């Protein structure tokens, strides 16, 4: 079994109001060094497959078709043994 950790993030040009609100809260708490917060999604996908090349292809297909919306999001992932 292999596990993929997939991160789906908003493209830089897409406004992230949620990140902005979190940043404002951090400033209120006194964390003045924080200059930007971007919220994103993380998925843990477990796969029953052995060949690394196949897994990569499958994950990229899953991201392109389902997990990420290419208009507004990009993704990256890491694969590790369970």
């Amino acid at each position: 079994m292999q596990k993929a950790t997939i991160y789906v993030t908003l493209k830089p040009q897409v406004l992230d109001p949620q990140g902005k609100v979190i940043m404002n809260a951090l400033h209120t708490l006194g964390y003045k060094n924080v200059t930007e917060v971007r919220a994103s999604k993380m998925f843990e996908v477990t796969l029953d497959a052995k060949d690394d090349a196949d897994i990569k292809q499958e994950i990229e297909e899953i991201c392109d078709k389902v997990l990420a919306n290419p208009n507004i999001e990009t993704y990256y992932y890491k694969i590790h043994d369970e």
Partner: protein
Amino acid sequence: MKYNIIIFPGSNCDYDAYFVTKNLMGAEVEYVWHKDTSLKYPDCVIIPGGFSYGDYLRAGAIAKFSPIMKEVITFANKGGLVLGICNGFQVLTETKLLPGTLLQNKSLLFICKHQYVKVVNNKTPYTHIIEKNQVLDIPIAHNEGNFFIDEDGLKSLQDDQQIVFQYCDKEGHIDDITNPNGSMLNIAGIVNKQGNVLGMMPHPERSSDPICGSKDGQNIFLSIMEFIEK
């Protein structure tokens, strides 16, 4: 004239759309369950508002994989009229029948209120009986209505006159103050290049029966009817 209204798990404006098209407009209407694999000979398909699949992942993202959507896409590609309202608009962008994406409202709040929208394109099957730049009172109720598209996409929408509705005030002013959700150019509704697919965040089915406080939404259904029957 016959409507088909698609129902997904989580649709909640399906009956409103049914009531208006059947009882107020006198059209023939049939519901179509999302698991169905064929439409019921419609002139116009309505994808109603609601929270299909609980808005999981992204609003409209899971609904695009429902079996009936293949048929809706085929119908649209043949020139059939497809009207997506609110969550229906989100489904249409996810299926790529319409460009762009509906992001979370800039305020992060769910907005539910009466809203003025300007009809900036009256050369569509959905708006042809309305005067250009006429202001309509059609309510909005959404969490993800903040229309986003990249620069090239926006230019293409403008060049091809695909913007149909823009948020405004009673006098028709379009600016940041009259923008409820942060949408680019105050966009409230767009059509595809061919003009047969419309997505709109405001709810015409909630402003057709005068008891709702506005009957401006009727204009959309009257336009469709006249377009089909003429």
